[in-house]
């Protein structure tokens, strides 16, 4: 499954491997509020505790902030993306999180952010948004059709909570990843932060872990029954002499991973390319030794993001070389 040649960019080795990603269901929600700060408060709350579907039910993150002219009600807003393993679970997470984190947040309103006419991701179905939350209105709620969109107006103590009745969902891609192997913690953090910053400039993707970075990369399975995932011992620097699976050389002192979810495989690929460019831009001189990726042998996920293919266009801007 590996490419025979090795690739170096700015002294950083790009492993001849690939990230393996999976189909997910996703949606974009647009949260607006009286001020950008309150919209962000709701967005941060809604996307909290949403790092991994393994334990959180969904993976979510802030996609970008929106100017007033970009939102349905002409107020400042924030676009968030939510990913789950099934339509049913996604719908459950949307209703629960919007109900507890947006309905409760002063001045906010929430709308579906997937446009059926322009979405490049295949449409999946419609998840309940206001159609369930409206019952909080205790009979005082009002429905309103404007054009082809139904909104709900739920009386709350600062006025009305306005939300779209449903949100379109799409068939998306989750689990794109980069593994950054560095000389030490400082170098690994710097490379990760640069990569995440580059990815966050792109639309349609999120990096759901804290700060976009995860240190507890996992492998499938465990020695303990009942645990579906466990630490990725192949990349743990304390296990270089213990684990037979270790992939670390003696000079690697810290490894961090970035997980990317996107609305399409092209979005995930573009984000990974941007991350490789930003991290490799720091290069070996800054302590970034290798960029690798996690996969399961290609047997589980239908989306394979080969690092050499993604980085093929990057070598021109750096001191890149094939060996």
């Amino acid at each position, binding site marked *: 499954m590996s490419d025979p040649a090795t690739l170096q960019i700015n002294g950083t080795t790009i492993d001849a491997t690939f990230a393996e990603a999976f189909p997910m269901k996703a949606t974009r929600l647009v949260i*607006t509020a009286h001020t950008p700060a309150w919209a962000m408060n709701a967005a941060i709350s809604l996307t909290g505790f949403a790092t991994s579907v393994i334990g959180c039910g969904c993976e979510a993150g802030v996609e970008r902030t929106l100017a007033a002219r970009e939102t*349905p*009600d*002409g*107020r400042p807003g924030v676009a968030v993306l939510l990913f789950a393993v099934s339509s049913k679970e996604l719908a459950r997470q949307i209703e629960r999180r919007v109900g507890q984190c947006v309905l409760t947040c002063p001045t906010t*309103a929430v709308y579906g952010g997937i446009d059926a006419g322009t979405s490049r991701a295949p449409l999946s179905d419609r998840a309940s948004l206001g159609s369930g939350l409206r019952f909080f209105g205790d009979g*005082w709620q*009002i*429905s*309103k*059709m*404007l*054009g082809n969109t139904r*909104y709900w*107006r739920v009386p709350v103590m*600062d*006025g*009305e909570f*306005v939300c779209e009745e449903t949100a379109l969902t799409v068939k998306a891609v989750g689990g794109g990843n980069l593994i950054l192997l560095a000389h030490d913690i400082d170098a690994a953090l710097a490379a990760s932060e640069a990569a995440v910053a580059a990815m966050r400039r792109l639309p349609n993707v999120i990096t759901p872990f804290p700060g976009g970075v995860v240190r507890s990369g996992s492998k499938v399975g465990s020695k303990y029954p009942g645990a579906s995932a466990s630490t990725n011992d192949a990349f743990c620097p304390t296990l270089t002499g213990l684990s037979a699976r270790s992939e670390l050389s003696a000079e690697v002192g810290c490894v961090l991973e970035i997980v990317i979810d996107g609305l399409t495989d092209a979005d995930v690929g573009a984000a990974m390319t941007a991350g490789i460019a930003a991290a490799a831009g720091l290069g070996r001189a800054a302590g970034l030794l290798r960029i690798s990726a996690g996969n399961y042998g290609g047997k589980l996920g239908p989306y394979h993001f080969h690092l050499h293919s993604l980085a093929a266009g990057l070598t021109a801007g750096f001191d890149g070389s094939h060996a």
Partner: protein
Amino acid sequence: MSLRITLRVKTPPGFRVDASALLPVPLATMTTAEIERIVLPAGNDRCIVGDVFEVSRSDTPAASDAPHAGATMVIENAAPWLDRIGARMTDGRLVVHGSTGDYSGFQMAGGVLRIDGDTGHFTACEMRSGRLTVSGHSGDFAAGALAGDMEGMTGGTLTIHGNAGARLADRMRRGLVLVGGNAGDFAASRLVAGTIGIAGQVGAHYAYGMRRGTLLLAHPPRHLPATFTEGGRGFDVFWGLLVRSLANEIAPFSQWRTASLPTRYAGDLAVDGRGEILVVS
């Protein structure tokens, strides 16, 4: 091919005619001779299209793969003896130069119907979707329900540039009705839901029995219905959505801005009481 069919009235029949068969998409599949042979019901009488209209069609190249979906039909020299113009229309574009009779756009389910003149009673009655524009005045029961039916208009947009008669949007459930002039008595009566905008004055008993929905008034009414109450504050977000949705409609509705919040009244408390009158001034 982009198709345009023109029917010019040459000999008025002398009685009222049911013109509901004159729809752009079905006629787009016919030759001129076939169109001329269409029989139009007229009560106990009937007439042949070719006896009443001068029929012509032009086919011009277009990129569309669905040649008839965008078909346009024009009726010239129309007069109020033409009833049911655009009735049950589902697609295409129908332009009428002149006035029409009753039931224009009756149960219309799609497409665009433009009438450059006045319309009779029951315009857009039980309309379901599409867009109907009347450049002149309209009679009674526009966007309403047939006698005995439970629901009036349930979707689409009706724009009347002039005045509307009595019982505007009676039992309307969904959709948008905009009147550039005045409305007669019982406007928005028994309204189930939907949005109605009236730029001019409203007659007596407006919003009578209004259960839900929104009545937009561009001028303060002479009196408020006794069964309406002060409607509170804090509906800024909804107002922002509504104003934006009216941006491409007729004035004065298109000129409203989010910054100036209207006065809101809630009712009709004699029924469900979740309707609202928004007075923009």
